């Protein structure tokens, strides 16, 4: 089976990236206040190291990872901690989340982290992973999974293959494309550091066919580095080719087991932005305190990419982009397929913020009323995860946990392809997203019940055995006394 055959489903979508890629990456203006949510990475919330009224300097660690999966946080500016309190955040729209609020003094006094800059080849791979962790680096592709945790779980003896994901397949988002065009050397530097940290054999940078300038920039950077372990692989511009599992199928022609991780088949995938962040840490001592954010859509005056410090309010980026246009209708964080609608723009940039779309009615047509499923099967042809969305939808009402599990609800990557092609305008992904935690809870409850049943049976058997032994003992005691009479 060839690679392209393994990438089934997906859609060729209009990219909508021309507007935001006209101008180079610009530096976002500084804000007065920076809000740093403690839970902006996946896993556990970080634990604050500062308290209100403390003075902090730029790049100073302000929260440390909780034991387990978690990440460091650093101050993006110098100034004063004004509060540690719940604040609204774009990644947890349900309720405000505990955040460190820093008032910027505008001086950018730097915290000297003497241990930051190291000659990478001289430390062991394990130390290298730890070192990357201290920069608070998380996956910048959108999931914000702590990179150090991912690297630790991927360390293997015979060396995995490293895949750098530059396939930015979702419409509107162009932060990775601009990064590859302008900072290809950072990506290659970060790639080489990751090769060392993982004892990896080689590094493949995957890039879509429709970004020739980024390809050329990367090729130049690889040539300059003179590292023969790094190569480029051009992949078709099909959404969601940049999904981790889909990209691995496209590049290597192998499928990640549905209940396993890429590391299980000897592959580690990192976003190109993550690699560039690693380069900045090792080379310049700069922890992850800023990222590139695309601000685009027909609802802003001037689309573009901004290097924004973590904690910058969205409203400040909108002002940098010339403000809203009259056509502005909806604000979205992320791309047009998987992005989440935001209620307002008083929210901070978090490590996972890759794109802000100020959408007009032209960008995103409002969904028309839902109609019944006509079982046309378009969704199953579009699904890149080999699922049958129409069947999943069928088993949601009434909720049939067995069938949902059997039909792989938990393998849904929520890419939105099924929604996009559905002629009945059924919000399939929204339903699946809601159903996933319910199913997980049901499967967990079943495991607990199985364990309880096993212990109940074991206890009853033990009690029966003890009872039998007791009776046998009593009988044995009685026998000698009875024998003479018999």
């Amino acid at each position, binding site marked *: 089976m060839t690679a392209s055959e393994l990438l089934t489903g997906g859609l060729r979508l209009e990219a909508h990236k021309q507007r935001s890629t006209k101008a180079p990456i610009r530096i976002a203006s500084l804000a007065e206040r920076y809000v740093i949510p403690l839970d902006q990475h996946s896993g556990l919330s970080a634990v604050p190291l500062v308290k209100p009224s403390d003075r902090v300097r730029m790049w100073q660690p302000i929260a440390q990872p909780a034991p387990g999966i978690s990440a460091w946080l650093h101050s993006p500016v110098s100034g004063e901690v004004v509060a540690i309190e719940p604040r609204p955040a774009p990644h947890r729209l349900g309720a405000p989340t505990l955040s460190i609020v820093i008032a910027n003094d505008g001086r950018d006094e730097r915290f000297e982290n003497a241990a930051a800059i190291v000659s990478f080849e001289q430390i062991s791979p394990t130390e290298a992973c730890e070192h990357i962790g201290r920069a608070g680096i998380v996956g910048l592709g959108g999931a914000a999974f702590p990179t150090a945790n991912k690297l630790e779980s991927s360390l293997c003896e015979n060396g995995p293959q490293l895949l750098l994901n530059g396939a930015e397949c979702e419409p509107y988002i162009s932060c990775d494309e601009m990064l590859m065009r302008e900072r290809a050397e950072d990506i290659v530097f970060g790639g080489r550091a990751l090769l060392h940290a993982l004892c990896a054999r080689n590094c493949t940078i995957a890039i879509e066919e429709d970004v020739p300038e980024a390809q050329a920039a990367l090729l130049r950077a690889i040539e300059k580095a003179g590292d023969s372990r790094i190569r480029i692989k051009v992949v078709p511009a099909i959404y969601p080719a940049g999904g981790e599992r889909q990209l691995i199928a496209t590049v290597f022609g192998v499928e990640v087991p549905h209940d396993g991780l890429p590391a299980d088949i000897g592959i580690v995938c990192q976003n190109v932005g993550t690699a560039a962040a690693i380069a900045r840490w090792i080379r310049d001592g700069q922890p992850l305190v800023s990222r590139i954010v695309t601000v685009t859509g027909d609802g802003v005056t001037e689309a573009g990419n901004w290097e924004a410090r973590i904690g910058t309010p969205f409203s400040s980026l909108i002002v940098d982009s010339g403000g809203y246009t009259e056509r502005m209708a909806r604000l979205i964080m992320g791309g047009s397929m998987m992005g989440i609608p935001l209620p307002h723009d008083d929210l901070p940039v978090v490590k996972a913020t890759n794109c802000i779309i100020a959408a007009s009615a032209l960008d995103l047509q409002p969904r028309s009323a839902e109609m019944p499923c006509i079982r046309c099967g378009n969704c199953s042809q579009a699904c890149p995860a080999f699922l049958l969305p129409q069947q999943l939808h069928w088993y949601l009402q009434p909720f049939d946990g067995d069938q949902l599990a059997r039909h792989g609800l938990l393998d849904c990557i929520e890419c939105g392809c099924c929604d996009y092609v559905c002629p009945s305008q059924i919000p399939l992904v929204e339903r699946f997203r809601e159903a996933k935690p319910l199913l997980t809870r049901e499967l967990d409850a079943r495991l*607990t019940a*199985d364990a309880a*049943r096993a*212990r*109940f049976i074991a206890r009853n058997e033990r009690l029966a055995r003890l009872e039998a032994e007791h009776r046998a003992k009593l009988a044995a005691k009685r026998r000698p006394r009875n024998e003479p009479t018999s």
Partner: protein
Amino acid sequence: MITALVTIMVLAALAGLATVVTAGAPEEISLADRIDALLPQTQCRRCTFAGCRPYAEAIAQGAADINQCPPGGERTAKALARLMGVAPKPVGKEFGVVPDHPAVAFIEEEACIGCTKCIQACPVDAIVGASRHMHTVIAADCTGCELCIPPCPVDCIIMRPAPTVAR
């Protein structure tokens, strides 16, 4: 024509043979097994039987109704109704209140005198301790059946919300 017919007949015979071979001896899953699989395994006896399995067997024999399990709540009652092919109905009030949130037992350790009565009462071996030594509930293994509460002579066992499992 003849070749085609012969080919099809041979294929059909092979397919039939394959079905017989793969099917093998059918594994018997009794009705009581299937009912038991739907029960929450709390072992709380609120259904008036000596545990989930005995209740399952009673339903299978027609000696019990499908609405006697408060820990399972509406979902279990519905699932049982579907399996038994009867109309669903709410859990009977006489069997107890359906809990809003799962709870587990907790021993207030400074009050525990180490009498082992709760250990003997626990249907799923979720309490550890020894005579005249402090006892404690393994929260992850506790089903929240509350059977340990009445035997405690010093009333040191309380119910607390079950810990949420981090994923």
